[in-house]
């Protein structure tokens, strides 16, 4: 069995006195899409933040076989993890193009970057139109597109997406999810997807974990979870 790209083993963490994760274990296989579901406050965002070093944690987190313990966010993302944070992390003081350039700013393979630019504009033509405008002029959906495009320009092996559907119209969500699937398939980027919209997330992913107050309550193949009515009712709310 090939070892997973990302592994979390009994991860505990919290903010100050408040403990948020109480032993989360999960893994993301190379090239897969895994969804992380759960109610508000279950610890989904905190799990992602732990992975990229945004909170202090206990237990172990390994990426491509190497522990991420004690490493800084800047180094972790350099290993090939692109994290699209809650709220999208758009740099609204800068232009669309500058946001994209920041995604690729550490890369030395200039020709490949140029090709990635072309592909990103193919996925999201609207970004090409708005390229020289301030990122603050983009709508919510366009900002989400920019965030995904920028993450892709980091040439990651793993993308962490925190609620890409939040606040967006259903049609926009659909098209973004389609592109996430395309990115996963053609670029072989693994995706760890945090979502409130469990139905969509389960459609897209192959495996899923459901968090409940800082623990993994249920996990399994997405198709199986979709089929289990009791799981859907009690954890996924649809």
């Amino acid at each position: 069995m090939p070892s997973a790209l990302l592994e979390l083993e009994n991860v505990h963490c919290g903010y100050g006195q408040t403990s948020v994760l109480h032993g989360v274990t999960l893994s993301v296989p190379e090239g897969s899409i895994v969804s992380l579901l759960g109610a508000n406050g279950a610890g989904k965002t905190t799990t992602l933040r732990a992975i990229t070093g945004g909170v202090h944690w206990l237990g172990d987190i390994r990426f491509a076989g190497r522990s991420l313990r004690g490493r800084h966010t800047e180094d972790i993302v350099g290993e090939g993890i692109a994290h699209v944070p809650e709220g999208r992390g758009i740099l609204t003081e800068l232009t669309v193009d500058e946001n994209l350039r920041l995604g690729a700013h550490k890369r030395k393979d200039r020709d490949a970057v140029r090709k990635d630019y072309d592909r990103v504009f193919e996925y999201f033509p609207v970004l090409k139109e708005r390229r020289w405008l301030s990122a603050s002029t983009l709508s919510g959906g366009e900002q989400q597109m920019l965030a995904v495009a920028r993450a892709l320009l980091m040439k990651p092996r793993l993308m962490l997406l925190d609620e890409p559907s939040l606040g967006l119209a259903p049609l926009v969500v659909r098209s973004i999810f389609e592109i996430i699937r395309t990115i996963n398939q053609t670029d072989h980027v693994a995706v760890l997807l945090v979502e409130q919209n469990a139905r969509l997330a389960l459609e897209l992913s192959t495996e899923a974990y459901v968090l409940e107050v800082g623990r993994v309550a249920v996990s399994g193949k997405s198709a199986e979870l979709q089929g289990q009515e009791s799981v859907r009712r009690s954890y996924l709310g649809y």
Partner: protein
Amino acid sequence: MQELIQQVVSGLASGAIFASLALALVLIYNAMGLVNFAQGEMAMFATFIAFTLIIHGLNYWIAFPLTLGIAFVAGVVIERVVIRPVERAPVLTLVIVTLGLATLVNGAAGFLFGYVPRSFPSPFSVQTINILGAFASFQDLSVIAVCGIVLIAIYLLLQRTTIGLTLRAAAHHPEPSRLLGVRVSWMLALGWGLASAVGAVSGIMVAPILLLEPNMMQTIIIYAFAAAVLGGIESPLGAVVGGLIVGLTVNLAGAYVPFVGGDLELAVALAIIVGVLVIKPNGLFGRAAVRNV
């Protein structure tokens, strides 16, 4: 008319000096939301370094860039050693730290170089040149040119290079920038280095006009504050425009408003600060502050 042109040129020369120091203030304000009260003292100290190099026989045009380099490194070191430990402290703590730094640098300059005012050599001849029938001092025009070149260089660095892009990103959006691999903490240090170097330009340019002594920058920094506030404390372009406006206003008021004369010029700068804060708190180029609470 001829006198007016002379006054305008010398106002712009003062303005260019204020603009450089104001830009230094803005660079640090952008990076940490903090006005560096030690900026003027740091510039003064750098000027003493330039002075020391020159009186030991170094050519002015070698001493000048060398001093900027030293000021840059010193700015980085100050950030690492003095500011870094209190980086996350409340802004009031930081203000006190920079005030302490100002006192420290001032005292160190007094201790090392003494309080006797010294005349600083100027590489520019004192002659005047004839433009459109008016005589402008070559000194003033040179100051404008030197500051202009430095300000354009900073603009190109910030707007046209990757390092400038990461600097701006880190200054405005530290958390998302970190997730894109920007070393935010180093960017702060780099910001301090740049500010320190730009500030040093103002010190070296003003020293031949005033006399070099440890308190030389204490009025200049007030003008620079006025310029930065007028431009909208967050805008580098605003700092430059603000600097020129303050320089012109102060000079013209000094020359043509009878009761201002030479004595109340500083009061004009203070009036600008108060006026801007009352009438247009975001300055000419600033944006209204929007905060999520």
